[in-house]
């Protein structure tokens, strides 16, 4: 592969998060390196999604420190995260159901658009040029994900597998430097999974995008990720390259069951 794994760009230290009295995450630390594919695995309710939510600022941890772009901070906020190039997909698809595929992807680029609503209202000059320029970029993503035939379809009408792909498209449309994927292959059949794997690897390879992903399919995870962190009941029980994690007795006991 052409990509070169770089330095640590996101470092999470001693993160603890609770809702009311319920502890979701306890004292978790791990880092993410530039251009790598980093997987988070663990049983249901282990706090994987909460972890992603902490990374892009949906949740605010009570304790801990996030070091990002050299700055030490207590938490992220969603807008900052998006502006810094984080894009995200969700476990239960969070597409804009009433909008077409094209509009969903265009919305993904919202942050990059500079014109204000008055310019939009007049649809003149800059606003029109901007819209068309972004349309061109979005068409590249549509092309990449092979969803040309459904561009004008409202996403609510698409089958599940395609919705997942469109959601990836919306994240890619933002040209992210870091992509957070929450179970991108859940509920898919083998072929759809293969397609999705290919897209993820291609994104990582062609654009050098750093990827943090949650996935239950161990075959896929061990295959495509560079490093894996394992959570259980909100605690970190393992961290390392796939082979290391696979042979970690604690991980086997808590999650993997038998050794693969």
């Amino acid at each position: 592969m052409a990509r070169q794994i770089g330095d640590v760009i996101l470092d999470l230290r001693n993160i603890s998060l609770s809702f009311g009295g319920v502890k979701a995450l306890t004292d978790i630390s791990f880092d993410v390196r530039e251009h790598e594919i980093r997987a988070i695995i663990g049983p249901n309710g282990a706090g994987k999604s909460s972890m992603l939510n902490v990374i892009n600022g949906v949740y605010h941890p009570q304790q801990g420190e996030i070091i990002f772009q050299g700055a030490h901070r207590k938490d992220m906020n969603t807008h900052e995260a998006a502006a810094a190039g984080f894009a995200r997909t969700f476990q239960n698809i969070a597409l804009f159901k009433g909008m077409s595929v094209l509009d969903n992807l265009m919305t993904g680029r919202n942050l990059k658009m500079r014109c204000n609503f008055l310019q939009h209202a007049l649809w003149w000059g800059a606003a029109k040029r901007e819209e068309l320029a972004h349309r061109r970029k979005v068409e590249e993503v549509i092309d990449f994900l092979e969803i040309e035939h459904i561009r004008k379809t409202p996403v609510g009408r698409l089958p599940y597998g395609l919705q997942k792909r469109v959601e990836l498209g919306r994240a890619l449309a933002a040209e992210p430097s870091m992509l957070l994927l929450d179970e991108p292959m859940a509920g898919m059949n083998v072929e759809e999974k293969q397609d999705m794997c290919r897209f993820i690897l291609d994104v990582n390879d062609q654009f050098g995008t750093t990827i943090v992903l949650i996935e239950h399919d161990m075959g896929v995870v061990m295959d495509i990720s560079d490093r894996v962190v394992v959570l259980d009941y909100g605690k970190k029980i393992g961290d390392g390259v796939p082979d290391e994690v696979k042979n970690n007795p604690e991980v086997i006991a808590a999650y993997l069951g038998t050794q693969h």
Partner: protein
Amino acid sequence: MQFFFEVLIGGLLSGVMYSLVALGFVLIFKASGVFNFAQGAMVYFAALSVVGCMEKGAPLWLALILAFGIMTLLGIATEKFVLRKMVNQPPIALFMATIGLSFFIDGFAPLLWGNEVRPLDIGLVDEPIPWILDSYNIVVSKFDLVAAGLALALVALLALFFQYTRVGRALRAVADDHQAALSIGIPLQHIWALVWAVAGFVALVAGMLWGSRNGVQFALTFTALKALPVLILGGFTSVPGAIVGGLIIGASEKLAEIYIPPVLAGWFGGNFGGIEGWFPYVMALLFLLVRPEGLFGEKHIDRV
């Protein structure tokens, strides 16, 4: 000071009436997740049905039973023709549908029973209680006190019904989780129809009390709208919330009506009456900014 207490007590007691209407909202919201805007129209319809039956010669008790029957039919029809057909729609669509329902009832009720303002006599007089007037020199309406007692009795009755009957248990199960209730064989649609009937009963009691106080008229539906700020204050899912919210709204709007206009008149000159028309809403709005889930409501955490 005496005057203050008189206003306060009067406000609290009339707040009980708001609580009664709010109670109907809470019941339906808990059981079906529907925010029933038509509750006010149901109050009007129930009161009108009682008066209508009595005009046709039925004694009060029979009129009450007949009116309850009508409210039950309304509940069943609503479930069958509206709610059942909208199961997969977002709550806001259901809410708008109940606005439609309230228009429908607002037209249907007077079409059935006539629209002139009519008195409703349930044997209660609106006069001060003598011994309180004598010993504390405060006017407390006998009517209001009985109404408050009746409201409390109704709440107690509902609590018992929910706690100790089979149907009550099923209702609580449905309120907790529709899917789970369905999966253990609770007939969701019957329960919804039933809950609408119970809400109809609550509307009937509220309609009787409001009606015998102010006459049975279309304006009842507007008075009943005040139950909405009550709900915001108390939380949409809490029966105690509906009661406490009603008391707070009742007391505060009466106090506001008495004490704010003179102040405004002092500043700007002119007449500033009618504050109670908007005060509960603005208060609820300000309250929302501080505590969106209401006094007794549950805090909602968005899961993604």
